[in-house]
């Protein structure tokens, strides 16, 4: 069972993504911003893949990713970015995939599985 952490500020998006991934048979944890997500990871949570929004209050996706990469215990967890920004994401931090909102669930699941497999090889 694939274990996923969703970091997303919009409650409706967060809830819906968690729901559909759960329905697809994944184990899902959720955080409303980067800061909470980071705290959960540092507390010992070890998802196989992180689904990360970019525009978030408190700590945005980029900052979260920088902290994650700076942490030896966390940096190997692959990240799939989901963003609603209309402009091409000016995202210079390496991630496994970028998916633009809105998206169909199959795309997200595919990206998560590929990221999981790539990181376990």
């Amino acid at each position, binding site marked *: 069972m694939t274990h996923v952490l969703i970091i997303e500020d919009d409650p409706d*998006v967060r809830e819906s993504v968690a729901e559909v991934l759960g329905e697809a048979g994944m184990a899902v944890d959720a955080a409303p911003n980067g800061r909470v997500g980071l705290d959960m990871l540092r507390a010992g949570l070890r998802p196989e893949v992180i689904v990360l929004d970019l525009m978030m209050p408190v700590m945005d996706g980029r900052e979260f990713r920088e902290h994650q990469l700076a942490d030896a215990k966390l940096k190997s967890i692959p990240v799939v970015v989901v963003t609603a*920004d209309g402009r091409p994401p000016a995202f210079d931090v390496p991630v496994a995939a970028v998916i633009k909102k809105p998206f169909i669930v199959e795309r997200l699941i595919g990206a998560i599985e590929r990221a999981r497999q790539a990181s376990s090889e």
Partner: protein
Amino acid sequence: MTDPEIERLRVELARERLFNAAVHRIARSLTSERDLDTIVQVLTDEATALCRAQFGAFFYNVIDERGEAFMLYTLSGAPRAAFSRFPLPRATPLFGATFRNEGTVRSEDIRKDPRFGAWGPQPEGHLPVVSYLAVSVVDSRGSVLGGLFFGHGTAGVFTEHDERAMEAIAPHAAIAIENARAMRAMREAEAERARSERRFRSLVSSTSQIVWTTNAAGETIEDSPAWRAFTGQTLDEFRGRGWAHAIHDDDREAAMDAWRRAVTARSTYESEYRLRHANGEYRLVASHGVPVINDDGTCDEWVGTTTDINDRRVFEQRIAHERARLSKLFLQAPAAIAVVAGPDLVYQLANPFYCRLVGKQPSQLLGIPGRRALPELVTQGVWDLLDRVRVEGEPYFAREFRAKLDRLGDGTLDEGYFDFTAEPIRDATGQIEAVLLFAMEVTGQVHARKAIEAILQEVPTPIVLVELDTARITFSNAAADALWGHPLPRAQSASDYAELYRAFDPNGAELTVDELPAVRAARGETIRGVRMDLDTPQGRRSVVVDSATVPAVPGHPATIVVSFQDVSQLVTTERALRDAVRIRDEFLSIASHELNTPLTPLKLQLGSLRSPDLSPEKIARKLDMADRQVDRLATLVGDLLEVSRITAGRMKMEPENVPVLEVALEVAERVGVGTTVPIAVDGDRAASAHVDRLRLEQVLTNLLTNAVKYGADKPIDVHVTRTDTAVIARVRDRGIGIAEEQREAIFDRFERAVSVRNFGGFGLGLWIVRQIVDAWGGSVAVESKLGEGSTFVVTMPCAEVRA
């Protein structure tokens, strides 16, 4: 013959022999020695010995300011120190006769000689002379060169024979002295000439001097290597009169005539002719020869020099040409030149241009004091000014000096402008003897410039004229003065600009004086469309600077026209446009984000509805979720439409008397539905505002939604009060607050006090609030403290009271 007679003759013979030997020695010295001092010394020594004198001296004539005196030249038999106290014997009765050539003086005992009166005891320290013999030394023209004086301590030493012997020697002395003097003079002249030549040679290197000798007949016997090197003649060609063949055919006859005349008269030979150089070129040379006169007055040799003066002549011609040019320049110069001298400033010189300039004939100026010649300038201060130059020695320069002259001589004064200088002229001792005036009339140019300036004055673009090089401002038009807020100081030196003008490049960096466009233009740069900002009394203005150069005309230096086009309005507009574009791009980005966000759950939920075995509860929840996203989208679209309506001025407004507290309670209840944050509403229940009810609901909904969003889940208060003219609603949260510098910006379209990343929402709400409140004639403001929350204060017009 008797013995005594024989003895007398024997003595006579011995004397003659001595005499002859002495004369021979003297003659030899005269021929062998060319040094005047040595000749005279030998002569004095021999003569002294011959007449058996204890002391012998040669004094020669010198004329000093007290009259005639005699200078000791040579001395024999006594140390020179014996005469140190009497360096210049006077023409006393004793000496006078000799210096006046009144015949030989011989005295047996000078102390007792009645001819010289009371000679008395000789001055202390004087040579103890008793026997005295003196002969005059007279040259060929009969003038006294000096005298030979002999003395002895005992009486009766000098005989008649001695007298004759000395009289025979004296002419020899004269000739020797004359010769030696001539030689010395020639040598000195030659030396001077050589010095000049050397000096000249340093200027032109090709000069060479040729030395030659000829016999008395003017024929060359000895070789002159220098001559032959110059002419390329062989020794045979050169010999005799062969040298003359090297002279140019046209010059030969004259040169030879001169030579023949000189040889015949034994006078100095001077001639200039063209001499063929070994390279075939004829060069102008100057030949100079002198006869060498023997002691017996004969001449058997000529010595001479030939000098290449070709370059010197060219040089002299050039100097003469320059001099001629100078005087021509002076007479024909397009400038007026005059010299006035003395306390009365008398015209010493005035060139034709000057005469024309002042409208006078030379005779009306020359020799006439300036104040009388041009009385009209007295009251204009010109003569006082020139007198100051004469007295103080400081040159005076004036540009565009305005003077009125009576040029027609009929008493009417004619105004003109002149550039002029007045410079002191000093004599050799440094005293100022005159004042040189150099004037140029620039009336035409001044009038032309004034005409141009009159036009420039009317041009709406700020224009400044600056002088080339100096960057001094010579003119600024009204628009320029208005731009800077004051008339620009004229003729300021560029170094003063730092204090007068502050300019900045478009990035806000202050320009140094050297970077100022006008200063750059004065250095010769062409300025094209340079943008800069200026500090002026009206605030900072943006200008575009261009420059053009007006070339110099006589009397007028080149001028740079610098225009400063005020583009402040354009710059403001440009900045506003850029901001608008930036805001629009940002809006599109935010809009896309905000619209995509609700679409994400909508799409996911709709997608998952396709799964087969869903419970009815699950389906209902998914549909609720989807429904909520559609509402969110509808609100977003509504806000956008609102913005568009307001922007287009199509906001509908139907004002009526509205009870504000009642509306606030309704809105608080509606907003409170989706949140756990407590919202308290209180205040003046009777407060009624004259507003559009639906719009008031919209305003309060916006403010309360924001308060919930940014209120950090802390209680929110709404408080309604009223004054005589207004109803005031305050919406207070206890959240993050708004920084002071952002408090105004939050009411702008698409602006949010917090960064885009941190909070969602269009940021249109507060803008819409302000548009609505402004339309009522009310106002909205914010009071806030960071970290303690914000209070939005809406002031609305009071309800209209029915009459």
